[in-house]
């Protein structure tokens, strides 16, 4: 637990109205003690937290008082008023932790059964989010009051069902790390203010990280120089100076500068680490690639593959080669880094740690490469992958599972049976009529009747008037019956018909029932003691509500009784269903528990 104890000054109130007795509230691990400031007062308190089953607190608002209400299992509650909200919150959090007992509490089942299996220590952030939710959603608050305060559900349980709405507050961003930007740093253009000939580079941790990642030499230099030999700012100034020189493409100048300042030279020279790395890579390059084609071209010494970045093509003397840098190199290097992805997860702010982390990484890599085994492996399957021409390949898709349906009739029967049942008829009509029919006769009779009507013409009149009349009235009757059914328009909401109070009441009950049922069903199948107890608690709560419903029904005015009872009925049904399920399950488990002494499945 974060801090061993909290000591705040607060007023103890026996009730909200009570002005309260000033004093000092001390919260320890398992108990809290209230010492009135004047010793004569009798308002001393010394309560163990395990008797505290819930805590409420006043919304944080300028005009409001900072109240904390600890409800005790025997129903009575201790109200404290604090001087400030921070104080209150401190205590509240402490209480929250205190009454949600430690996860490793072995004795939990014994004296304090309703232990959530994982009672997470709530970070204040978590708490705040919950509070916010409660504040915005009054209904939620009601529920929370009723159940959490009422000790039916623990805080954890209550929120467990609302994870989603909580999580919405924290955007999923935080979990994911962003890859490196795909655009290159050398687009960091120097911004020069007009008059003085100074140029300004703006440097962000992001950029630094990128520089380090792409230019190991710079990184190394940083680690060596800063802060022993120069300050960080100097370092970067040098670096950008070098960059600037490059951008001016004035190689001669670059060379000159390098000559007199060896630190600067580091930046101006070819990145030797890269170079060596590159060579290593060349050696391990995809074997199917024909390296003979460009013999000795290790991508580093050949200037720019022909496309040159600098204007002064003329002076390509060997001495300056050192100071040339090809656009392609940068590009490739950048691409490589981006592909590697951001593998360091240190806080970008601190330059040094970044640098170190990267270096460490590099070392690890090279170490792996040193242990050549999996590289070989990689090579071989690389070869195999390259060797095959994909168009000549067979389908790479995986084998599929066969399906053998024996008899589609099953699918029908599953319908037919009850479809007929609902029509209140046995199927005997068709299935069991065992009348042997001669196909020939049958067809014969058919043909006969056709030809008969052919030469006789239709029967005239088709139907007798009275028959027609009979049928018509029969149909009309049926229609008017169905009409009667649909009579009341389904769209008009019945709720609005009711007086507001009743409506509110009903809706509230409904929501609480929903809440309870959710918890009830979610805790099946019962696997742990904890669930078992939870279910019991929930069940009791539900039976309470059951009474409430009855009261509502009886309380409403005569003229509303019918709709209300209609409304209430499904709720009671739902509850009954739950109880029934509980009973059944209980039977099962009790029978089981015969051979399972501890009684829990």
């Amino acid at each position, binding site marked *: 637990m974060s801090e061993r104890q909290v000591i705040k000054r607060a007023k103890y109130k026996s009730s909200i109205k009570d002005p309260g007795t000033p004093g000092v509230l001390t919260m320890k691990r398992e108990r809290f003690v209230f010492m009135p400031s004047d010793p004569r007062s009798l308002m001393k308190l010394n309560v163990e937290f395990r008797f505290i089953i819930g805590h409420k607190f006043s919304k944080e608002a300028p005009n409001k008082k900072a109240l904390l209400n600890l409800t005790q299992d025997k129903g009575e509650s201790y109200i404290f008023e604090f001087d400030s909200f921070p104080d209150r919150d401190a205590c509240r959090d402490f209480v929250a932790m205190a009454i949600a007992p430690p996860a490793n509490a072995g004795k939990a089942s014994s004296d304090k059964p309703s232990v959530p299996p994982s009672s997470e220590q709530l970070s204040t952030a978590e708490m705040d989010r919950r509070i916010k939710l409660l504040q915005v959603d009054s209904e939620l608050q009601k529920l929370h009051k009723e159940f959490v305060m009422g000790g039916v559900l623990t805080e954890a349980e209550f929120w467990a069902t609302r994870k*989603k709405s909580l999580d919405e507050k924290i*955007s*999923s*961003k935080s979990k*994911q*790390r*962003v*890859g*490196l*930007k*795909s655009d290159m740093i050398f687009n960091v253009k120097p911004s020069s203010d007009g008059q003085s000939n100074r140029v300004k580079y703006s440097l962000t941790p992001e950029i630094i990280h990128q520089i380090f990642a792409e230019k190991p030499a710079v990184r190394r230099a940083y680690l060596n120089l800063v802060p022993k030999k120069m300050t960080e700012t100097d370092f970067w100034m040098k670096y950008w100076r070098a960059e600037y020189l490059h951008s001016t493409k004035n190689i001669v100048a670059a060379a000159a500068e390098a000559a007199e300042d060896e630190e600067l030279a580091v930046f101006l020279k070819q990145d030797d680490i890269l170079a060596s790395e590159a060579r290593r890579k060349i050696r391990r390059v995809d074997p199917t690639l024909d390296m003979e084609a460009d013999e000795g071209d290790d991508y580093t010494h050949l200037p720019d593959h022909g496309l040159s970045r600098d204007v002064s093509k003329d002076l390509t003397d060997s001495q300056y080669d050192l100071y040339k840098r090809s656009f392609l190199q940068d590009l490739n290097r950048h691409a490589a880094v*981006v592909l590697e*992805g*951001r*593998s360091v997860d240190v806080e970008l702010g601190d330059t040094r740690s970044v640098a170190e982390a990267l270096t460490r990484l590099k070392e690890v890599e090279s170490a792996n490469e040193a242990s050549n085994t999996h590289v070989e492996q990689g090579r071989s399957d690389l070869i195999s992958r390259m060797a095959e021409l*994909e*168009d000549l*390949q*067979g*389908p*790479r*898709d*995986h*084998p*599929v*599972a*066969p*399906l*053998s*349906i024996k*008899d*589609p*009739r099953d*699918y029908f029967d*599953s*319908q037919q049976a009850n479809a007929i049942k609902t029509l209140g008829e046995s199927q005997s009509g068709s299935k069991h009529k065992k009348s042997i029919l001669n196909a020939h006769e049958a067809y014969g009779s058919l043909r006969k009747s056709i030809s008969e009507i052919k030469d006789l013409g239709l029967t005239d009149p088709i139907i007798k008037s009275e028959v027609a009349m009979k049928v018509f009235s029969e149909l009309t009757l049926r229609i008017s019956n169905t009409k009667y*059914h*649909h009579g*009341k328009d*389904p769209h008009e*909401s*019945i*709720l609005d018909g009711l007086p507001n109070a009743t409506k509110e009441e009903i*809706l509230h009950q*409904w*929501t609480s029932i*929903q809440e309870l*049922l*959710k918890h009830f*069903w*979610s805790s099946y199948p019962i696997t742990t003691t904890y669930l078992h107890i939870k279910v019991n608690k929930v069940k009791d709560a539900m039976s309470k509500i059951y009474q409430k419903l009855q009261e509502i029904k009886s309380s409403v005015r005569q003229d509303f009784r019918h709709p209300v009872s*209609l*409304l209430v*009925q*499904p*709720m009671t049904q*739902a509850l*009954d*269903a*739950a109880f029934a399920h509980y009973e059944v399950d209980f039977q099962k488990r009790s029978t089981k528990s015969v051979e399972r002494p501890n009684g829990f499945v």
Partner: protein
Amino acid sequence: MFQHNNNGGGHQYNTNTTNQQQSQAEEEEEDNDVEGLEAWERAYADERSWESLQEDESGLLRPIDNKTIQHAQYRRRLRTYSSSARIQKGLIRFLYIVIDLSRAAGEMDFRPSRMFVVAKQVEAFIREFFDQNPLSQIGLITIKDGVAQCLTDLGGSPESHINALMGKLGCSGDASLQNALDLVHEYLNQIPSYGHREALILYSALSTCDPGDIMDSIQKCKKAKIRCSIIGLSAEIFICKHICQETGGSYSVALDEAHLKELVLEHAPPPPAIAEFAISNLIKMGFPQRAGEGVLSICSCHKEAKFGGGYTCPRCKARVCELPTECRICGLTLVSSPHLARSYHHLFPITPFDDVPPSLLKNSQLLPKSCFGCQQSLLGPANLPGPSVACPKCKQYFCLDCDIYIHESLHNCPGCESFKQSKLDRGTE
């Protein structure tokens, strides 16, 4: 396998079409900027409708007829499915549609922009999907600024998804396949094993900026039996292809909007179940009864008191408004038997029809004069037998329209259905 080849083709096509588009764009640059064009002008500039204009011999304009082409395309599509006859299909799917809303989605090569076109197609897809897989669920994920974000989580109501998507359009930043895969994996890993886990990625970007090694994520997905399919909008990318190959999905690149639509809808019918992926299992489901007429109750979906209508969960007696759904209270899956029936045609697929060989077309007296299905005359112009197809089982002839209708919507062959003997082998199959 066909799919496979198509990719290659798709790739080549695509690259040079993109070139084309660029060059076309340049043209438009030359004759004053595109934005300057009126909406109606642009319509011509893009579609080049005049190119498909036809004249008859007397120089009169003739309405454009591309029926045969469409049918050809359709046959192609059909054949890709038909290979998967008589095998298990993923009837209960949990699909995450991943939509790339990175910078690249703002490209205008699809009008008005890739992003909008994709959104449109996804909407159509979602509706079709739920029509074909009533027992399945969809979720939406977007990639933006290098991270993947969950737009809607798995659910069965098309409207909610569509609304959410339409609300969230707008693109920026890089795309990261890895983050997307990780997110999908995170969500799909929880769902029960009988469900077919799928991800359909609509990818506009040409690159992926990942925080780490994407190969790991791919392996993770593979292990989690998540079937990832990707539809590219720009050009074929190796990594995408790799992902699909690894996870047993399909990879294709859209040439244009029509093609995109086609490709997207190819994912609507349930995919063949990969053998080692397909864990069969028993799913507990409830078959709620319709609430009686007089009954009045508050539905758990949107707390309104309703007379009649609606269904009552058999387990916890909660009221829900429509099926299929998951009971809000006790989490039981609620369906009605017709919903199951909707999927049956996937279990008894109908064999594709064969084209009538030209040799037969020669001697027209052998062929029936009219389509067995719709009685339309099969005779083309000048009383020569026009194009038609025949069912391999019942040997009945159908017109092209019926062919499409039968396979796309009806799912049973009138010929086979209306002859007794065919009943027998249907049983045995």
